[in-house]
C-alpha cells in the first residue's frame, strides 16, 4: 500500500495550472505562518475571534486553541519548516515537489483546523 495519496506524481497539464498551484502553495504557507505566530502568543493575548477560529475539542476532549496550536507547531515543526522552505524557494519547483509540498501544507492545515483537506483554503486566520 502506497503511503502517498494518488496523483501526486501526475504532471500539471499546463503552465497556468502550475502557476496556480505555486500561488496556492504560497497562500497555504502564509496561513501556516499566521497560525505559528498565533501559537507563539501567550493565551491572554488571543482575541475571541482567534480563539473561536479553531476547534475547541479533540477526540471529545477539551482542547483550547492556544494549547492546540502550540502542540501542532511543536509536533509538526519539521513539516512546517519544509513547507516554508519550498514555499519560499526562488528555484522553480518540479511538478512532483510542488504537488507534494502543496499536499503536505494542506494536511498541516487540515490537522490544526480539523477541516477536510479539500476545503482548508477556506480557513482564514482572523
Amino acid at each position: 500500500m502506497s503511503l502517498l495519496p494518488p496523483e501526486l506524481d501526475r504532471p500539471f497539464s499546463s503552465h497556468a495550472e502550475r502557476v496556480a498551484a505555486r500561488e496556492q502553495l504560497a497562500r497555504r504557507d502564509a496561513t501556516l505562518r499566521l497560525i505559528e505566530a498565533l501559537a507563539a502568543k501567550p493565551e491572554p493575548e488571543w482575541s475571541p475571534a482567534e480563539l473561536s477560529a479553531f476547534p475547541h475539542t479533540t477526540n471529545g476532549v477539551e482542547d483550547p486553541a492556544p494549547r492546540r496550536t502550540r502542540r501542532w507547531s511543536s509536533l509538526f515543526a519539521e513539516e512546517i519548516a519544509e513547507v516554508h522552505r519550498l514555499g519560499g524557494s526562488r528555484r522553480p519547483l518540479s511538478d512532483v515537489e510542488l504537488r507534494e509540498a502543496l499536499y503536505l501544507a494542506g494536511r498541516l492545515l487540515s490537522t490544526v483546523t480539523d477541516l477536510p483537506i479539500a476545503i482548508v483554503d477556506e480557513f482564514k486566520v482572523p
Partner: protein
Amino acid sequence: MTDLPEGWDLYNPNQHERSEQPSYKAARDAAAQRAERRRAAYGEALAALRRVRSLTQASVAQRLGVAQGEISRIEHQADLLFSTLARYVDGMDGELTLLVRFADGQVVELSSVLEDLFQQDRPTDGATAPDLANVIRLSGFHGSYRYKEEKFRELASA
C-alpha cells in the same frame, strides 16, 4: 559480525577463503548457514504470499507468460533481483513497495522516489526536474504523518 574472526576487515580472498584455519572456516560456515536460512525464508514468504492470494504457481506463471518452472525457480532462488521480485508480485496483481525506516522514525517510500527518477526522462510541459533530496524528504514526511497525527490527537487528552 560477532562470528567473524579477528582481522576480517583485512580480508584477503586468497588467504581467507581457502584457509583451513578453524576460526576462518567457522566464520565461512556460519555465513553460509545464514545465507541459506535467508534464502529459505524469502522463498517461503513468497510462496505463502501467493497462497494467501489463492494463486498457484501455474496461475502466476500464466499471468507473466512464463513456464511454471520459472515461478518455482524464483521461490527457490538464492538471491532475488529487485526487478525479479517486482515482476513476481506483478504476476499476483500486486505492486511492490519499498519502505526504508530510519532509527529516527523517518519513513521513506523508496518506490515513489524510484518512480520520480523514471519520470525525469519523461518530457513535460516546461516542468523542471525534481530535486530528489526534496522528494525523499517530502516522501518521508508523508510516511510519518499519520503516526504524528495520531500523536497529536492522543496528546490532547494527556
